[in-house]
């Protein structure tokens, strides 16, 4: 079709959409007309069939049709017989599964919430649950009814009539009796019985009832009071963490796409192609952060390669362009945010060049050059590396260009800068980049203790690094080692992450935010970017070594992180984001969803995809 034909078709559709939209009320009218004109597949006749429905359901259906033109309009009309919120929930369910049986939806409609919503979720997820058996459970009192539903999900053969008869038993005998009914004959390999995620069904449905909540620390609540508790969604996260409750865990890909959506949102709010540093409970979205935007770019390219969503590709390329636009004359990238920091951590009168930040942006440029072949990105990377070479002294320590926020004068986590320099050296043939990088890598590897510990990995000069910077150090060594084919660096990274794995597992699967030499820690909170980074490292090394134990710990950490991410929070700054700390009022980036946590969680989910495909499922 020629361009003019496309234009004519669009205009014809616009007229049809206008006619259809005229049956709708403002403000939905204009939105539907414009959207349908942009979508050549939506049928104006279908839109007109919605005319008799109530608002806002009519507009919801219209928007759904614009997004999914193949939806069965007759079903949408018939759903109109239900009241909200069930009607809207059904609409969402039909969007996910257009062949959903209306009779089944009617049979569930009579149930009371939250049981009704859970049942609808099962129907939408194509779970082989028999709705007649749901009826057996609907009259049971809560929370026993939800436990009974979980039992039915775990074991479709469970006798629901028998469970119904348990309804009058006193607790805890009733729940014990239920557990006996479920545990009978649980030896087959059905995933749900093993706590495996069932497509579309929150894992929480399968989980045992939560432990009774602990007493709330008044000081923590008072502190939360200074972080805009009135904003919808803030208290959800705070009390979730205070009570030690987990969010429902869904399939990996749902968490991945929600994380990427959060990242795209964090970019859109800045009005630039840079990604907002974080969403903070008091300050809202912070300014764009050049450093982390740099290393988010490769994540977006990876996501595009695996998921095919062109928005990720566009965001990656635009991010790389934005970084060129803000590159300093020296070739460096500035420290801190591009704009005033409301928290006052990064403010400086004039932009300060920062070697670490520069290295992270080089990673984004190099990857964009490899993906696009556009030499502008490689030229920018080379300019940056000429700056970086000047920052490394003869012993291999970065002495110049140290970021002004951290205070440690000697920093081993700049291995990530060395990785960027090695890569640029390979792309440009410029050997000075690689030789400076090797000096640093040799120095860091030479510092490593026999138990895998790296001195100088801390932001501060205190010998107490965050897992975030510990993992930075191991990432740089691994990636540089793989690029250079130098097994010494790879082995140094492996020793470190293997020790971190033991440190996490031995604590009952808890990775404290800080460690000191000897892998000691008394911290009671986690640094979530560090957790996600180590998950990725464990998964990467497991693939390299074909080591199932490392794959196991990495996959478990991904699962644990899912429980820290809310996918239904009403606040867009929280929904799909990943906090800096767990609990959210822990000791690192408190009351914030930080973009580097989202980036590393996306990396971990992408790596988990590979590990499951190439290592676990292949066995």
């Amino acid at each position, binding site marked *: 079709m020629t361009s003019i034909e496309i234009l004519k078709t669009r205009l014809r559709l616009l007229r049809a959409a206008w006619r259809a939209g005229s049956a709708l009320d403002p403000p939905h009218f204009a939105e539907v007309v414009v959207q349908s004109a942009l979508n050549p597949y939506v049928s104006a006749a279908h839109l007109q069939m919605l005319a008799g429905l109530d608002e806002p359901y009519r507009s919801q259906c219209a928007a759904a049709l614009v997004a999914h033109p193949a939806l069965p309009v007759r079903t949408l009309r018939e759903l109109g017989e239900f009241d909200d919120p069930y009607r809207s929930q059904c609409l969402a369910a039909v969007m996910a599964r257009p062949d959903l049986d209306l009779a089944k939806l009617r049979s569930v409609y009579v149930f009371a919430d939250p049981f009704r919503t859970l049942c609808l979720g099962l129907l939408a997820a194509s779970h082989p649950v028999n709705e007649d058996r749901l009826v057996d459970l609907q009259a049971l009192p809560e929370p026993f009814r939800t436990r009974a539903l979980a039992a039915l999900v775990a074991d479709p053969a469970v006798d629901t009539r028998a469970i119904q008869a348990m309804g009058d038993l006193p607790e805890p005998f009733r729940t014990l009796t239920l557990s006996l009914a479920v545990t009978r004959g649980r030896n087959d*390999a059905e995933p749900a019985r093993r706590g495996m995620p069932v497509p579309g069904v929150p894992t929480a449905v399968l989980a045992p009832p939560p432990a009774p909540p602990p007493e709330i620390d008044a000081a923590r609540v008072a502190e939360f009071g200074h972080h805009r508790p009135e904003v919808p969604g803030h208290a959800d996260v705070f009390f979730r963490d205070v009570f030690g409750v987990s969010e429902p865990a869904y399939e990996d890909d749902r968490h991945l796409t929600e994380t990427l959506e959060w990242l795209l949102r964090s970019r859109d709010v800045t009005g630039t192609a840079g990604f907002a540093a974080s969403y903070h409970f008091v300050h809202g979205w912070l300014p764009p952060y050049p450093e982390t935007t740099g290393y988010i770019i490769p994540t977006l390219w990876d996501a595009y390669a695996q998921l095919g969503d062109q928005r990720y590709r566009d965001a990656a390329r635009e991010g790389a362009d934005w970084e060129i636009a803000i590159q300093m004359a020296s070739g460096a990238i500035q420290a801190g945010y591009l704009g005033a920091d409301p928290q006052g951590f990064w403010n400086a009168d004039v932009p300060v060049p920062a070697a670490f930040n520069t290295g992270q942006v080089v990673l984004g440029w190099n990857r964009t050059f490899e993906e696009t072949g556009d030499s502008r990105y490689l030229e920018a990377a080379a300019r940056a590396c000429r700056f970086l070479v000047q920052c490394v002294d003869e012993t291999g320590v970065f002495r110049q260009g140290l970021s002004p926020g951290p205070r440690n004068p000697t920093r081993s986590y700049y291995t990530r800068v060395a990785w960027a320099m090695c890569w640029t050296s390979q792309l440009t043939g410029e050997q000075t980049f690689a030789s400076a990088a090797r000096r640093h890598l040799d120095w860091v590897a030479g510092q490593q203790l026999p138990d895998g510990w790296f001195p100088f990995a801390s932001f501060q000069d205190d010998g107490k690094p965050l897992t975030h910077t510990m993992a930075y150090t191991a990432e740089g060594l691994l990636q540089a080692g793989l690029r250079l084919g130098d097994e010494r660096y790879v082995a140094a990274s492996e020793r470190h992450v293997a020790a971190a794995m033991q440190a996490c597992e031995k604590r009952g699967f808890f990775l404290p935010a800080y460690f000191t030499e000897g892998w000691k820690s008394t911290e009671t909170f986690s640094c979530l970017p560090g957790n996600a980074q180590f998950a990725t490292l464990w998964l990467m090394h497991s693939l390299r070594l074909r080591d199932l134990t490392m794959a196991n710990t990495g996959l478990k950490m991904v699962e644990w992180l899912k429980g820290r991410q809310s996918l239904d929070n009403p606040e867009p700054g929280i929904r799909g984001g990943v906090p800096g700390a767990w609990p959210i009022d822990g000791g690192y980036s408190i009351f914030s969803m930080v973009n580097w946590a989202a980036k590393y969680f996306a990396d971990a989910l992408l790596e988990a995809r590979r590990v499951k495909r190439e290592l676990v499922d292949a066995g």
Partner: protein
Amino acid sequence: MPARLFVLGTFDQAETALYDVDLMRCLHEAGITPAGVVYKRSRPAENPDRPVENGPGPDGRHLIHVHDFNATDLVQRLGELSADLLIYAGGRDLLRGPLLASARLGCIGGHYGRLPEMRGMGTPEWSVLIGQAPTVAVQRMTPGVDVGDVVMQARVPLLSTDNFASIRERSYYLTKTMLALAARRMLLDDVAGTPQAPGVGRQYYRLHPALHLRAERKLTRMLSAAP
């Protein structure tokens, strides 16, 4: 056999039934009459702050109810009772040095996994994943995780219809039997245990569901390939 053997375990049975649990039956068949049982309940609220002793009864046996096997009072009491050997019936307690040293021959416990290669948790599944025969071992307990001297170990017989639940169940009965046999031999000073070679083996942890599924698939293949 006249020996001062005490069984340590978490039991929710009535006190009158504690001498009728599986391990006790195995000990009885091995000709050993325990001098007492040290027990706690699975619900912490049901345990006393300090050890409560009931006995000795007419049969001369002691029942000691505790909240923590490492309690100083208990360690002292076991010393007073001149314990020869302790058997840890199983669970996730960390037994500390003073308790383990309170009996002349120390304490033995069971473990599902070949030592020294396979320490930690989820060991039947990990055994299959790494291509090792599911094994149960009796070891002299130490404060470390599964690093004690190995007194006895044996492969778990496998059936073509097995799954991990049935393997665990068989491992359970095999362990109780082996604990009774090992206790008998130790009380006769017939065996002392072989120290584990340092640096051999590794510690395993709870499995992610995806790994569990892989272990199940591998077990099915392994059993169907068996002659």
